[in-house]
């Protein structure tokens, strides 16, 4: 599905807020359990995350 990201975020800000909140709490739980080793989980996927974010910014600028 194609979306206009700006419009989509504005129309679904409650959903976006809930997902971000849940994501941050889960990240907190992982950090609490693993400590510094959380980086071992995050680093392999960092490149994919950066590419996804760059694509998202490109979509937003369109």
């Amino acid at each position: 599905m194609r979306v206009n990201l700006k419009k989509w975020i504005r129309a679904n800000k409650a959903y976006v807020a809930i997902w971000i909140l849940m994501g941050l709490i889960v990240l907190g739980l992982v950090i609490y359990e693993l400590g510094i080793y959380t980086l071992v989980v995050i680093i392999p996927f960092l490149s994919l995350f950066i590419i996804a974010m760059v694509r998202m910014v490109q979509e937003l600028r369109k």
Partner: protein
Amino acid sequence: MMIAHATIPLILYGLFPNHISLLALLLGSGAPNFDVLPTLLRKKTPKNALTEFHAASVLHTPFFYLILLPFVYLLLDYFTVASSLTIAISFSIGGILHILMECFDEKGRLLLYPFSKKFYGIPVFPYDFWTYLTSKKTLAIEGLFFVIACTVLTLRWAGLYAGF
């Protein structure tokens, strides 16, 4: 899908903390998604998201993690890593768990690969990313597992539950 990546592994770890390596479990549950790269780098969004490469490669098959298991174990054992068997099993469980959770989307997964190239699953969740984020049913199920994960870990930290 947060349940496939983090909440189910956290619940599993909360229930069996002495038998599972959380680090390996989370790495395993993230490993299938390395096949998302061609999807991220594509120039055009396909009309039908179900036809994309992501979730249709060997990385999204239980077979891959079963084959990988002895190799991960032998590699870790060679470098005399402590609890190498636990780490290898946790990694494979993470990968397989991810695939089993994702079976509940519209696309299904290649569960019987290499014996069958058919996608199997129960279509509970939408596959499309944007629809997934705004589905009330999805949010309710994800939220339920999120609450269970928080509860299990909080009980353990509070010393009310020691785990199996």
